[in-house]
């Protein structure tokens, strides 16, 4: 089903007789095997005010279209949503609704926030077929409960997004990457902590253990970027050879964002969210064939032997998501880490309120 308006979407959900697999562009391969319900038909820009850093768009609007629109005003989606196509071998056009439904962020998450921090308002249709709205189009809004956050990252299980309002930011005039050669994870995380704890407004801190390189990104006005990159080189020299990279920064950070290191390699892919310094201990315990670190160590990508449940090896607080695996593994191991019982009860309660028939991506989030 591909509704062409929010009213049609509401009608289809209200009349649905069984489970629906809610999808945006399908690039993240999240939907299950039920009747597909695509939001791709709900497309278009409702409002764009560059001077107010505000964009309101229909949820099915392709991300590529939004990027070109923002490009023209020298603005961007600052949370840098990852493109999953290379990692998952999917194709198609990601939609802005899908980005927010899955709360997809990239390396800049550590500095400016996640997708959820940029979402200002939502319109959506819940599992009863009701058309609802929450939040608005202004930057600050504490009017009533923040269902905007609840919808962001709910993967369509509480309702299907039809329109989103978001905050955009100016593009940076310049960008520089400082590279530090470091062989051990412990030292790499310490170096990233040092960079992120500096006053130099770091917008990316990633570690590739296979290359033995820490990447630190700074962005802003040209002179300021040069100054901060230089200061970081000095501050980090004690960890290893540090220099300003000659690599194309846009390409480099796109590869980090999209976990390009795992694109052509077999194995399951897990995404782990932990306290950065816990990454060190966890990395030593994982039976992984390769690891990549982002967010100063707080985000770990693990390439694992097929079929293993990485969660059994989680020795620290945090959570692990199974992002890529074959159908047999996915049938056995749930995508999202099960919550502790009291929180699972709250989440189940919320799903029962918003989707009492349990028809929206059932089972996806517990």
């Amino acid at each position: 089903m591909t509704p062409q308006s929010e009213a049609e979407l509401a009608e289809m959900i209200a009349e649905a007789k069984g489970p629906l697999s809610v999808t945006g562009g399908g690039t993240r391969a999240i939907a299950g095997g039920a009747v597909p319900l695509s939001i791709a038909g709900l497309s278009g820009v409702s409002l764009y005010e560059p001077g107010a850093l505000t964009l309101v768009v229909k949820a099915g609007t392709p991300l590529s279209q939004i990027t070109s629109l923002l490009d023209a005003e020298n603005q961007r989606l600052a949370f840098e949503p990852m493109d999953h196509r290379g990692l998952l071998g999917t194709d198609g056009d990601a939609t802005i609704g899908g980005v927010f439904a899955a709360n997809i962020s990239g390396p800049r998450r550590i500095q400016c926030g996640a997708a959820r921090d940029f979402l200002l308002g939502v319109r959506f249709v819940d599992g009863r077929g009701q058309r609802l709205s929450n939040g608005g189009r202004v930057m600050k809004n504490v009017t009533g409960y923040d269902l905007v956050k609840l919808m962001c990252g709910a993967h369509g299980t509480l309702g299907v997004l039809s329109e989103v309002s978001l905050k955009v930011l100016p593009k940076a005039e310049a960008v520089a990457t400082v590279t530090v050669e470091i062989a051990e994870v412990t030292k790499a995380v310490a170096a990233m902590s040092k960079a992120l704890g500096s006053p130099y407004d770091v917008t990316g801190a990633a570690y590739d253990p296979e290359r033995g390189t820490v990447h630190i990104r700074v962005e802003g006005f040209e002179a300021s970027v040069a100054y901060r990159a230089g200061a970081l080189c000095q501050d980090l020299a004690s960890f290893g050879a540090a220099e300003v990279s000659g690599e194309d920064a846009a390409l480099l950070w796109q590869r980090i964002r999209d976990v390009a290191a795992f694109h052509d390699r077999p194995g399951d892919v897990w995404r782990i969210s932990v306290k950065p310094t816990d990454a060190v201990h966890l990395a030593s315990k994982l039976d992984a064939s390769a690891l990549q670190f982002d967010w100063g160590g707080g985000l770990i990508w693990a390439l694992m032997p097929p079929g293993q449940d990485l969660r059994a090896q989680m020795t620290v607080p945090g959570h692990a998501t199974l992002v890529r695996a074959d159908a047999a593994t996915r049938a056995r191991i749930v995508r999202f880490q099960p919550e502790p019982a009291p929180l699972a009860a709250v989440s189940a309660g919320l799903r029962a309120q918003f989707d009492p028939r349990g028809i929206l991506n059932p089972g996806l989030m517990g």
Partner: protein
Amino acid sequence: MEMPSPNPAVLARKARLVERLSQVLPADAVISDEAETRAYECDALTAYKCPPLLAVLPRSTAEVSDILRICHEEGVPVVPRGAGTSLAGGALPTADCVILGVARMNDVLETDYDNRIIRVQTGRTNLSVSGAVEEEDFFYAPDPSSQLACAIAGNIAMNSGGAHCLKYGVTTNNLLGVTMVMMDGSVVEIGGAHLDAGGLDLLGVICGSEGQLGVVTEATLRILRKPEGARPVLIGYDSNEVAGACVSDIIKAGVLPVAIEFMDRPCIEACEAFAKAGYPMCEALLIVEVEGSEAEIDHQLRLITDIARSHNPVELREATDSDEAARIWLGRKSAFGAMGQINDYMCLDGTIPVSSLPDVLRRIGEMSEEFGLGVANVFHAGDGNMHPLILFDANKPGDLERCEAFGAEILKLCVEVGGCLTGEHGVGIEKRDLMLHQYEPADIEAQLRVKDVFDPGWLLNPAKVFPLSTTQSRRQPELAAE
């Protein structure tokens, strides 16, 4: 402002409740004497007062858990209270409620510079969180004006902002985890030192829920390294339109100041008379602050002053040293005090799209004439968060009501132009009855269903946020059944 009448059955159980609470709390933590409960009769919205049945002042999560379990068993409403600085009446008691004050829970539990977090008990004041990490040159970013007094608990309840949130975001963007006690006494951990939620973003919905979903006793907050320096520039214009256009041009140019504050003429005059900061007398004053190294500050201020000059300012004053910077901020920071000298005032915080600023200011001016009450505007212009201060005389019969009616019209106007009722103070009781101007009944119902999940008995801060008519069947099911 209507509040539900107290439940006589609860009032009749006071002695029993005191006895039960005294069994789990130290003697000085249960306040039942009428002379003492009066201290909790209102928050910073002083126009409304009602002493609670009891007040309790726990020192730990375990004590909060005991209190809520007992109140849950006894069917007694609980109103959580941080430092009592709410301007919206978020902590206003009812006569049949227990005030649960977290002020004694103010310990720092953990500071972790490597992971850039601090874990605190939520009775700790906002400013003292920054104070706890200052020696390492770190700070906690959200900075509401009341930061000297307000507690993190209240900041989380109201999702508080501040002058610097254009760059650093509001509470929800800086909150990583909480320990929360549910109304039945169970303790849950949500989030933590890691960045993203594993399941639904429960932390996101708890932040800003005005103490209606649970009592947050501990919080993990993001701390940031202080910038090398900061410097403001003061820009005066002869019209609000031009000042508004200047703000928009600065943002479009790709500069992201940490703060853009806007004051209109009545506010400038009052501040100048009060603080003698040396402000020029003009229609609109902007204070724009940028951060970074000396060179970065110079560069950004050059861009900003170039844009400002292109709009023909009547005044353009760059701070050359910290004294001058302090003087630029002096007037703005004393705005509320200055207003308090002139009159009683009500401070609203409706938010509007920045583009409608001039139009909204003009219409507020017209309404000021109609209602016969003065109004001064000071606000965070970068994010459209208005702060109209309506002046009235509390001793003059009818003035408060006229002021509230005027305030309601301003907030309706904010919604009409695409904004919202409240940007950072919260709904509380103050804006409760305007919620249906912003949301359709079904949108309200969706929010009530969230509360149903966390607090099925509707005992936590039950008479706030939503119009009483929309919550009555939940708060008083026995009446609805009759």
